[in-house]
C-alpha cells in the first residue's frame, strides 16, 4: 500500500491532534450545552457549507493561487437573484434558481481564471479587484431588484433541513459526496495531478507540457461553482433564499479551512479529505464563540489569530 508523502502525514496528524485537544477543551469548558442535539446539528450544518467552500478554495491554493472573490461571488449571485425575482416562474422556479446561480458563479470564476492566465497578473490582485467589483454589483442590484422569498418545494426542504427525521443525513451525505468527488478529482484525474504539479513548480509544469491555461480556467471555475453550491446548501437548510451580505465571513472561512486543514498555502501539496477536519474545526470555533457567549463579533479576530498561528506553524515545519 503506498504511503502519502511525508509532509502530508505530518500535517494530517498534527492537525488531528490539535483538533482533538481543542475538542477536549471545548467540551470541558462548555459542558452539557455542547452536547445537545440542536447544537451538534448546527455545527454539522455549518461544517457542510464551509467544507464545500473550502474545497473550491483549496483547489485554487493547491495550484499556487488564491481566490479572494469567493464570498463576493455568492453575494453577487444573490444580488442578481433579486433582479430576477419578478421572473421567477419563467425561470423554472426552484430548479431554475439553482441552475442560474451555479452558472453565474462558475462564469465569474472562469473570468477570474481567464484574466489570471492571460495577463499573468498575481491571483491575489485579480481576485481582489473582482471581489470589489462583484460586491459593488451585488449592492447595486439590490437597489433595483426586489427582495423576495423564493420558496422551495417542501419535499426538498425537508430533505435538507435538520429536523430529526430519517432524512437528517442527506445534507451530510451530500457534502461527503462532494468531498469524495473532489478528492477523487484531486488525486485520480489528469486535472488533479496537473494542479498539484503547477502548484509545486509552475516552471517545471510548463516544461513538462502541462496545459496551464486549461487547468487554471477549470480551477477558478470550480471555485466559483463551489461557492454557488455552498450557498445553495445553506439556503436550503434555512428553507428559503434571501439576500444578505455575509460575503466576507465566507471568504475567511474558505481560507481558514485549507490553512487549518493542512493545505500548504504555497501550493503543490495537501490532502483534500483532511479539509473536513479543518471545516469541523472552523465550525466548532464559531459554535464555541456562540456558546461561550463571547461576542460573535470577535469571530474574525479569533479566526484570524488561528489562521496566523497555523501559518506560522506550517512555516516552521518547513524549516
Amino acid at each position: 500500500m503506498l504511503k502519502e508523502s511525508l509532509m502530508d502525514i505530518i500535517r494530517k496528524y498534527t492537525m488531528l491532534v490539535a483538533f482533538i485537544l481543542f475538542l477536549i477543551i471545548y467540551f470541558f469548558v462548555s459542558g452539557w450545552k455542547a452536547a445537545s442535539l440542536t447544537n451538534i446539528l448546527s455545527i454539522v450544518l455549518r461544517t457542510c457549507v464551509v467544507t464545500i467552500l473550502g474545497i473550491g478554495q483549496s483547489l485554487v491554493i493547491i495550484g499556487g493561487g488564491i481566490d479572494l472573490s469567493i464570498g463576493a461571488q455568492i453575494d453577487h449571485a444573490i444580488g442578481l437573484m433579486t433582479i430576477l425575482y419578478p421572473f421567477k416562474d419563467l425561470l423554472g422556479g426552484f430548479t431554475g434558481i439553482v441552475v442560474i446561480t451555479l452558472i453565474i458563479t462558475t462564469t465569474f470564476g472562469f473570468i477570474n481564471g481567464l484574466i489570471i492566465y492571460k495577463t499573468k497578473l498575481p491571483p491575489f490582485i485579480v481576485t481582489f479587484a473582482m471581489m470589489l467589483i462583484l460586491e459593488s454589483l451585488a449592492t447595486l442590484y439590490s437597489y433595483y431588484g426586489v427582495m423576495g422569498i423564493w420558496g422551495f418545494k417542501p419535499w426538498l426542504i425537508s430533505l435538507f433541513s435538520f429536523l430529526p427525521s430519517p432524512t437528517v443525513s442527506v445534507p451530510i451525505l451530500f457534502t461527503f459526496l462532494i468531498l469524495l468527488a473532489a478528492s477523487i478529482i484531486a488525486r485520480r484525474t489528469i486535472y488533479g495531478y496537473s494542479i498539484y504539479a503547477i502548484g509545486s513548480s509552475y516552471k517545471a509544469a510548463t516544461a513538462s507540457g502541462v496545459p496551464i491555461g486549461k487547468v487554471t480556467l477549470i480551477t477558478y471555475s470550480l471555485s466559483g461553482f463551489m461557492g454557488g453550491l455552498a450557498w445553495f446548501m445553506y439556503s436550503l437548510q434555512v428553507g428559503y433564499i434571501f439576500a444578505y451580505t455575509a460575503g466576507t465571513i465566507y471568504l475567511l472561512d474558505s481560507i481558514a479551512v485549507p490553512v487549518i486543514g493542512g493545505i500548504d498555502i504555497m501550493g503543490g501539496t495537501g490532502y483534500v479529505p483532511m479539509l473536513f477536519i479543518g471545516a469541523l474545526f472552523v465550525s466548532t470555533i464559531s459554535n464555541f464563540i456562540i456558546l461561550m457567549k463571547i461576542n460573535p463579533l470577535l469571530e474574525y479576530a479569533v479566526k484570524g489569530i488561528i489562521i496566523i498561528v497555523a501559518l506560522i506553524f506550517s512555516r516552521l515545519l518547513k524549516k
Partner: protein
Amino acid sequence: MLHQLGKIFSDFSLFFFLVIIVVAGQLSNPLFLSPATIYTIIRGTACLGFLALGEVLVIISRGIDLSVGQIACLSSVIVVYFMIMFQSPLIAIVLTLLMGLGFGVLSGTLVNIGIPPFLATLGTMWIAQGLAEYLGVKPTPVPSHFSSFNIISFETPPVTAIILILISVISLEILATKVPIGRYIYYVGGNEYGTYISGVDVKLIKYIIYSFSGFSASIGGILLTSWTTSGYKWVALGQEFTAIAASVIGGASLAGGEGRVFKTIIAMVLLITISSLYTFLGLPPTLFFLTEGFLILGAALFQIKFRRG
C-alpha cells in the same frame, strides 16, 4: 520606446483625468466646484491619504498591505474608547498609534518568516476587523468636551488637514528620494537579491515598511474620526481598495521598484473627486467601489502592457 511613452502618459494622465472629471462635474452641476465640495475633497484626501502613504511604500517594495482599512476602522473605534477611558485625547491618540504600529510589526514579522504578504496582511486585517467589530458595537460620538478633537470636520477651510497631509507627503517624498532607507525600499522592490548582496538588511527594511503602514493607517483612522466626529467601526470599510487603487493609479508597480508618493496622493485626489462627483450626481456609493475595482484592474494591466520595458 513603449516604456518611455508609458512613463510620459502616466505622468500626465493623472492631471488630465482630474481635469476631465472636474469639468464633467461642473457641466453636470454648476454647484460641483463649490468651496464645500473642494473642502470635502481635501478632507477626504487627507484622511484616506494616510492609508495610501503606507500602502504605496509597501507596494514599491513588492509587497501588499490589505489591513490598512481595518486598522483605520479599529483606530477610529479605540481612539474614542480611550478618550473616554482616560479622559485625554492625547493619551488616546498615542495609544491608538501604538496599536497601529503593533499591527504593522505583526504583518512585518509574518512577511519576514516567509508568509506571502497578501496572506499575512489578510490575517492581520481579520484580527483588526474582529477587534473593531467587537469594541465598536455602535458608533460612539467624540465626547463634547473634547470637541476640539473634531478639528477636521469643523475647520473651514480645512487648514489642519492640508498641513498634515502636505507635511507627510513632503517628508515621505524626501525620505523616498534622498534618504538611504527610503531608497532601499525601491531597491528591495526592484531587485531584492541584488540589494541583499550589496549588504542591505532586507528584513529590517520590510519591518520598517509594514510597521509604518500600520502606523500610517491608524493616523488615517484618527483623522477620519475627527472628521466624522465619532468612532465608527465601518468608517474605513473597504478603503484598503482605495489605498491600493491610489497607489496603482499613481504609478506604483505591483512588481515593485516603482512609484511616487506625491503621485499617489494626486491619484487619491482624483479618486475622491470621482467619489464626490458620484454623490453629486445622485449615484449610489457602491458605484464608486465598482469603478475602483475596474480602475485597479485597468491600471495593473496598463503597467504590464506599457511599462515593463
